[in-house]
């Protein structure tokens, strides 16, 4: 259990560095460190599917995306932050955090324990006990995301497809009207 606290402290320090640093590239690398810590945490919680996706998307994808797209003369940001605004936002976030601890301390299960140890009628129990015979997939995560809950995967694919269309439309140089004028 101590490994989670070590990882949480590591991720918190990386998040503070990512906010405070002036270099954009090192800030992105700190976000990659946060993703790596989260991936290790998923691995210790025995969720290797999420760990693989996390490390691929957040560490590799983010850093490579920023490295491939950022232009070199824009990597430094300048300017001081307003002291009063920082103090007020930190106090507000701390109050919300304390209220969250007060509310969720009794109801939430302990960190890392699944919900079906407390609730006998939980849906995840059905997936675990009947997943193999109903879908035939040995990996229960695949049987959930592609059979029991395939609508979620369809929605995620739709989101990705729509984002591609939006990127193509926004990032183009000429408008459709100019292209049609050129054709004439």
């Amino acid at each position, binding site marked *: 259990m101590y490994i989670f606290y070590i990882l949480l402290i590591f991720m918190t320090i990386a998040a503070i560095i990512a906010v405070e640093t002036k270099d954009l590239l090192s800030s992105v690398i700190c976000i990659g460190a946060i993703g790596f810590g989260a991936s290790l945490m998923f691995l210790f919680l025995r969720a290797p599917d999420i760990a693989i996706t996390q490390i691929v998307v957040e560490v590799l994808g983010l850093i490579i995306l920023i490295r*491939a*797209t950022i232009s070199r003369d824009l990597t430094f940001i300048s300017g001081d932050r307003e002291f009063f605004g920082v103090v007020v936002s930190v106090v507000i976030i701390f109050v919300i955090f304390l209220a969250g601890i007060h509310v969720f301390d009794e109801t939430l299960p302990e960190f890392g324990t699944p919900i079906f140890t407390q609730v006998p009628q939980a849906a995840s129990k059905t997936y675990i006990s009947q997943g193999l015979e109903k879908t*035939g997939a*040995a990996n229960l*995560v695949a*049987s959930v995301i592609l059979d029991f809950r*395939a609508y979620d995967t369809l929605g995620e694919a739709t989101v*990705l497809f729509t*984002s591609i269309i939006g990127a193509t439309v926004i990032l183009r140089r000429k408008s459709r009207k100019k292209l049609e004028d050129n054709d004439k």
Partner: protein
Amino acid sequence: MKGMTIIVKTVSSWVKVLIFLFGIYITLFGHLTPGGGFAGGVIIAASYILLMLAFGRKSAEENLPLPLASKLDCVGALAFATIATLGLALGGSFFVNFLYQQKYLPGKALELISAGTIPLSNIAIGVKVGASLFLVILMLSICCKGKECTFDISDLEED
């Protein structure tokens, strides 16, 4: 961007094949081992992005041209929707695992060919996610170099 030094080029020309194979493995064995279509697709896209970083954008575009990538994106999305609709037509409800429920292709559990439509969906999602991530990063890298955008919508259409 003409690419990096000769060391990076040599190493990445070997490593990109291994990354690509690993992405295919993650996608194909998604119903048996951890992973799946999404993670496999991102790994496949990462192999092309490594190519783009090491050899420059032109080389990556020669390996996977923009029209082909956008077509692969559409084919993956269409294949996933087709699998879902075939479940409605053959199995009675949307997204039903018709290959497994109706015993067209039963297969034993823990084998590569098993679990009905789940491996097919994994392949469709892998193709779709890989192509679309490659497209996003290619478009951003085209548009973010310099002040003037050099990307044209007619690049997506065929010559």
